[in-house]
């Protein structure tokens, strides 16, 4: 075999799981030894060491011996070891079998393309045989070979029956969790039967060896006919380095995206299209597909936020909502309970959440379904999770990468879950989402309208303390824009209070948090219509804070917003695009900061 082309060959990550002491280390030791993946002389050294210490030689010792030598550079460690076949290179992830290490098992297994699950023929199916099977199913690992190991220790006459019984019992269990194993293999890793080579010991078995089973696994590439999905990971604007691009960055979860595609962001429901795929230090690209850490510019600047899910208009859209049905596994030492607030992370979306209700808890040791209000460590349960804000998602069955989440308790990732469905709900954010989705578009695009008017619509929000003269600044700015032939309009929030807002207006109007919130929402909605009509809008309101600005950005579909604080408050600089001192030249400074 030519070593040079070996690196060109594919790699596959395999996780090896099973109950403690069912023989995982021996299987790995055998695979390494029988594929010639051990350093020269290693096997002899370990044999010699065993002879001198009067211990029977075991292949599992090889792993320990290799671990001791890691610092001399042999590529093996507690987590991974490497070997190769004619077909490809394998990375074996050795997942701990002990229940205490379930979170390490999950960390290792989540990186795997396929799994070997080891069951001791003498002990039979144990708690972790089931728990690990369940976890593999939740982690989305579909390719599994089950090794019924240590079969040489079963009396010869009973071997076939023992093997058959474990195969039928475990198949029933796996089918309950949605897994059809690729094969069951009778093995003795200790003796080397059916690991790399077939033994004559199990003449009734005519299936594959473990090595053949590995080579028969498909390199996991999920079907590429899934609709396009990409979480907004960040929005980059490195304007301080004279780069005027506004780049939406994220990794493609499924499907592909081309320049020119019309896209929608959920949960906001905002729509735009892709102007260009951005790259650095590589040839220009016209499209990106699954797995790429991508970036693109938009034709119409919308306010995009981390955590929104991008889809292509015309393809199947994701679901959205603030209540989800899910299967959850729990790793935290404190139970997942309805009394406590948590955080959910799904892709790059993140919001507060609570356990709404538990429909059933699955006990891996008894296979029973229990009714309980909370979910304890190492349990799996079907439940409903209630989110503080709606997010977009798919069911895990439709799109694994956009259908699974983790739950954070305090500072720690304490559980994971896969989404099985949505529960209908109507919150303010969902109304906004619906408004965008239901928006009746004119046949004139924003760009075309801009050409008719010779301007781009733009919103200037001027705020500051009560005593500052925001109104004069707004009026001066409005006049200057109109003098230059622009279509500009100044709207103070006061103009709304006694008309559009008269149904809710109370004596202390803007000082009651709830009422203030609704007035600002109405201001945003009105401004949104004016901006859609192509205007340059100037609005004034007292002391808008960063949350209120954020709410306005959410309501307004375009991203040409200039936020201005009037006054010399240093601590406002972070929240606003511009801070100006109250005075005659304030409007000129704002004018200079306008786009175009």
């Amino acid at each position, binding site marked *: 075999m030519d*070593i040079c082309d070996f690196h060109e060959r594919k790699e596959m990550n395999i996780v090896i799981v099973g109950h403690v002491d069912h023989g995982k280390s021996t299987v790995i030791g055998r695979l390494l030894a029988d594929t010639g993946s051990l350093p020269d002389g290693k096997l002899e050294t370990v044999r010699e060491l065993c002879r001198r210490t009067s211990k029977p030689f075991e292949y599992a010792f090889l792993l320990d011996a290799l671990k001791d030598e890691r610092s001399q550079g042999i590529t093996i460690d507690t*987590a991974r070891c490497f070997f190769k076949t004619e077909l490809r290179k394998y990375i074996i992830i050795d997942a701990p079998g002990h229940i205490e290490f379930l979170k390490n098992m999950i960390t290792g297994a989540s990186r795997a393309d396929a799994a070997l699950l080891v069951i001791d023929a003498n002990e039979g199916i144990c708690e972790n045989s089931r728990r690990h099977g369940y976890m593999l199913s939740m982690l989305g690992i579909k390719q599994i070979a089950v090794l019924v190991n240590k079969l040489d220790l079963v009396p010869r006459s009973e071997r076939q029956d023992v093997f058959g019984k474990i195969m039928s019992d475990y198949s029933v269990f796996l089918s309950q969790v949605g897994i059809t194993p690729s094969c069951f293999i009778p093995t003795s890793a200790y003796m080397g039967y059916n690991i790399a080579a077939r033994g004559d010991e199990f003449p009734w078995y005519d299936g594959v060896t473990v090595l053949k089973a590995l080579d028969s696994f498909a390199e996991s590439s999920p079907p590429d006919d899934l609709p396009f999905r990409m979480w907004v990971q*960040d929005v980059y604007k490195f304007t301080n380095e004279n780069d005027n691009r506004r780049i939406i960055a994220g*990794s493609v979860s499924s499907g592909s995206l081309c320049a020119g595609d019309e896209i929608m962001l959920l949960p906001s429901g905002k729509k735009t299209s892709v102007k260009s795929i951005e790259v650095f230090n590589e040839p220009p690209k016209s499209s990106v597909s699954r797995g790429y850490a991508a970036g693109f510019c938009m034709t119409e600047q919308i306010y995009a936020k981390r955590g929104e899910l991008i889809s292509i208009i015309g393809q199947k859209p994701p679901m959205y909502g603030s209540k989800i049905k899910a299967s959850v596994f729990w790793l935290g030492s404190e139970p997942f309970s309805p009394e406590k607030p948590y955080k959910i992370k799904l892709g790059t979306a993140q919001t507060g959440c609570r356990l709404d209700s538990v429909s059933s808890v699955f006990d891996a040791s008894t296979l029973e379904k229990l009714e309980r209000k909370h979910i304890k460590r190492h349990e799996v349960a079907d439940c409903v999770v209630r989110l503080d804000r709606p997010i977009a998602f798919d069911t895990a069955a439709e799109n694994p990468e956009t259908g699974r989440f983790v739950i954070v308790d305090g500072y720690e990732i304490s559980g994971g879950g896969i989404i099985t469905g949505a529960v209908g709900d109507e919150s303010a954010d969902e109304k906004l989402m619906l408004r965008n989705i239901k928006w009746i578009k004119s046949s004139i695009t924003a760009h075309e309208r801009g050409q008719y008017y010779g301007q781009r619509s733009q919103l200037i929000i001027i705020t500051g303390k009560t005593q500052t003269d925001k109104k004069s600044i707004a009026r001066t700015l409005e006049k200057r824009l109109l003098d230059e032939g622009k279509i500009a309009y100044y709207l103070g929030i006061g103009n709304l209070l006694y008309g559009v807002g008269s149904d809710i207006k109370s004596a202390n109007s803007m000082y009651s948090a709830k009422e203030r919130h609704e007035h600002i929402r109405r201001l945003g909605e009105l401004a949104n219509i004016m901006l859609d009509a192509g205007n340059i809008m100037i609005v004034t309101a007292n002391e808008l804070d960063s949350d209120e600005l954020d709410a306005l950005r959410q309501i307004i579909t375009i991203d040409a917003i200039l936020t201005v604080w009037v006054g010399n408050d240093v601590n406002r600089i972070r929240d606003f695009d511009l801070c100006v001192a109250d005075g005659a030249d304030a409007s000129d400074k704002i004018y200079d900061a306008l786009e175009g």
Partner: protein
Amino acid sequence: MTHLDNLENNSIHILREAFNRFGSLCMLWSIGKDSTVLLSLARKAFFGHVPFPLVHIDTHFKIPEMIEYRDRLALEWHLDMVYGENTRALESRLTFPDGNVSRIECCRNLKTTALQKTLSGEWPRYRMNHETACYERDKNTEPYTGVIVGIRADEEGSRSKERYFSPRDDNNDWDIGDQPPEFWGQYKTDFKPGTHIRIHPLLDWTELDVWEYIRRENVPVVSLYFDRGDGKRYRSLGCLPCTTPVDSDAKNIDDIIEELKTGKFANIAERSGRAQDKEDGGGLEELRKDGYM
């Protein structure tokens, strides 16, 4: 997608995640090939920009060419370059080359302690002024809460146990037995005040991957990695007194890749030229707990 594409995109995703999640973020740049690959990945991730400072711990025993190369690249790529050092140990000559302490103790003084104190902002940081190309005392003394580091799992035993996002507590302690779970591209980005997170975007890369990527992307590397006529080259770069070159006539990247593939170094550790690794059996894991890279 090729193997290298896969590694590249995964690393970029991690870098972008780090940039988004950590307000006070920096990247350690040792000037070696791994952290320079990391730097190239950052430029790709942020479309030509590197939006966080690069921190170098200067032991003042580095091979001089490394410092020259650092400052040249910092100017060329507009890098926000910061360095820190253990002034006290250098002044009182508590170093191995001065004959006063062991190699491991010297590493602890000039690297581990210097790194801890530079990251925490307790000791002075020196920042490059791009107009004068000189370093000036940095006014920012805020601790870095996210630190990007270019370690690889295949390098050496203790590194194989790392996570992509690995927490360190206020004593810089690393609890190897109880690490956070990491799956589905979700990392530990929530942390108590006083703790910080090490971010390891290169964890899945091997030495060969790094060189193949350097070739593919034309990443500039310091010429010490190549045989310059004396039949010797550095395979791993560190301080001059504790790093010895290996016998090799690899004169360019192709030669190095060939050498790694044909097995000349296949069973010899990359860090075999680093004397401190050998001095103390479990020493490196101990140092790593304290923050050594």
